[in-house]
């Protein structure tokens, strides 16, 4: 099988805008699932509401497209009732960190055996570009027309603090690294959280000085700093500019986990 065999051909074309980063991350995820060798009938994709959450609808396994913010709670029920199933949750920044924030921290605390791929476009894309908990300070959106005045959420820091077994961040530029991180997440028992920054040219990029799709991808490339390098800089007392994106693996550990296949 190839990644394409995991798609519901009868549902294509998809609803994502031209230049959207979601397709890249979905491909990386399917590639990782393909590499680990999961079978279609043992795999379930779950999601909430938002652009990212439309992904399971295009994947040919059993899939549950749930309510806004609640995907992790639904997935918890599936996994506990049948630990034989492999579960991947697609979510977005608004879905996971705003309305679903409480479920996120408790899923991390339980360390339930799910792999969560968060497509963080820093905006509510589907509803036309409202500010989200990860919209950067000063970022423009329809609900932050004068620039966001709130600090953004560090989702990986949150997942690490709350107890997830595996936490990593990459961007839609880092296809190979992202795929490898997702694969590691799939392999790792317990709660695996992989955040990928994605470009949303329609609702984020064009309001925030990324005139072309490539501009934001280029930005991801030039503004990424590896976790290891950041640590070395801190040791030397060097400042890490606040706009830099920390990427790489934040934690890989073996806390007691829930719902792991016996």
């Amino acid at each position, binding site marked *: 099988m190839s990644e394409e065999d995991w798609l*519901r051909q*009868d*549902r294509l074309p998809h609803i994502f805008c031209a230049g959207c980063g979601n397709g890249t991350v979905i491909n990386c995820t399917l590639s990782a699932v393909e590499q680990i060798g999961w079978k*279609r*009938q*043992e795999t*379930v994709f*779950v999601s909430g509401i938002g652009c990212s959450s439309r992904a*399971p*609808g295009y994947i*040919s*396994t*059993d*899939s*549950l*497209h*749930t*309510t806004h913010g*609640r995907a992790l*709670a*639904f*997935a*918890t*029920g*599936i*996994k*506990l*009732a*049948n630990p*034989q*199933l492999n579960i991947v949750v697609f979510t977005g920044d608004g879905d996971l960190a705003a309305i679903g924030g*409480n*479920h996120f921290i*408790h899923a991390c605390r339980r360390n339930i055996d799910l792999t969560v791929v968060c497509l963080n476009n820093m905006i509510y894309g589907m509803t036309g570009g409202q500010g989200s908990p990860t919209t950067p300070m000063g970022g423009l959106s329809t609900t932050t027309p004068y620039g966001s005045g709130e600090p953004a959420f560090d989702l990986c820091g949150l997942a690490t603090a709350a107890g997830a077994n595996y936490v990593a961040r990459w961007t839609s530029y880092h296809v190979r690294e992202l795929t490898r991180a997702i694969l590691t997440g799939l392999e790792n028992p317990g709660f695996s959280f992989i955040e990928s920054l994605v470009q949303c040219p329609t609702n984020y990029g064009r309001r925030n000085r990324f005139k072309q799709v490539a501009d934001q991808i280029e930005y991801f490339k030039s503004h990424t700093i590896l976790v290891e390098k950041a640590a070395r800089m801190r040791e030397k007392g060097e400042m890490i500019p606040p706009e830099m994106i920390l990427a790489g693996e934040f934690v890989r550990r073996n806390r007691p986990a829930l719902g792991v296949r016996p």
Partner: protein
Amino acid sequence: MTRTEFMQGNTACAEGALAAGCRFFGGYPITPSTEIAEHMALRLPKMGGVFIQMEDEIASIAAVIGASWTGAMAMTATSGPGFSLMMENIGYAVMTETPCVIVNVQRGGPSTGQPTLSAQGDMLQCRFGSHGDYSVIALSPASVQEMFDLTVEAFNLAERFRSPVFLMADEIIGHMRERVIIPDHVPSNQRKPYEPGSLPFRAGEDLVPGFPAFGKGYGVHVTGLTHDERGYPCATSPKLHEDLVKRLVGKVEGARGSITSCDILNPDAEVVFVSYGAPSRTVQQVLHDHPDDNIGHLRLKMVWPFAEMVLARFTNAEAFIVPEQNLGQIAREIERHTDKDVVTVPKLGGDLHTPGELYAIVENLK
């Protein structure tokens, strides 16, 4: 072996669920329903089932729906504030046709209200609380025995109709202890299996599609969006939406005459009590104390869908007296279906109507 127990209503509910085959409970502690969760936490792990205390009631009903998609019989239990939180996902269960049982041991509201005292104020919320048009099944127990029996029935109906089914209990019945007979075996309905290759959301004459459980290789897509018979989102076709919603409502409403469950006493009476839940006990006392008055009693064990045809069984009825622990929620439904007098007897605050209060109304009507 059938056994007799002296048991609390909430415990009997949990035992009924286990007897029916429930193997997943997701819940959040809330008075006065908590004993159900506690009993499930004690019993489920020893029966190969799963108990999980979720972070709130939204997550509880979500986990229950998720578990149900693996084929498990699943339930949650709560009270008013938690019930309010569950509303969105209850609509999701309706839309995705997910069998599950939701117990509401009702307490005084609105808001935090009276956590330890009885009420029936959520009867319309259970019918209409989630957004959009839909229909549900709701049962209302009037004894500890019925906490057991109607929980079993709730599971059977949920499986048969692929629908959330509510056990709308109240604090009085949930918390009291009395004699209960636990049978060896209970009747059990399983959800209709899915025929591989068929469209997963295409229904036959009974309007209920077969259930394509996860993990069998069916590759079913389940969404709360308006969907076609393949399960694929199609949220912009007026006709498709109308057909889907009408089928979801129709599968329940169309069956109301055949599934309704009630006790009818003295059908030739001119004055008839209509009750459900705890106030039924007062009505029963009134009939017992005044056997010569020929007072009628319609006791609803199933409140929703409301089977208006049973009102016509009281051929001589001049008035229906409706005692409820609310300001007249089901009385309003009865008014919709009869041209006879409907006398609401509201009671708030947690107390049960006394036999004296109810008999005085009968005397006034004479």
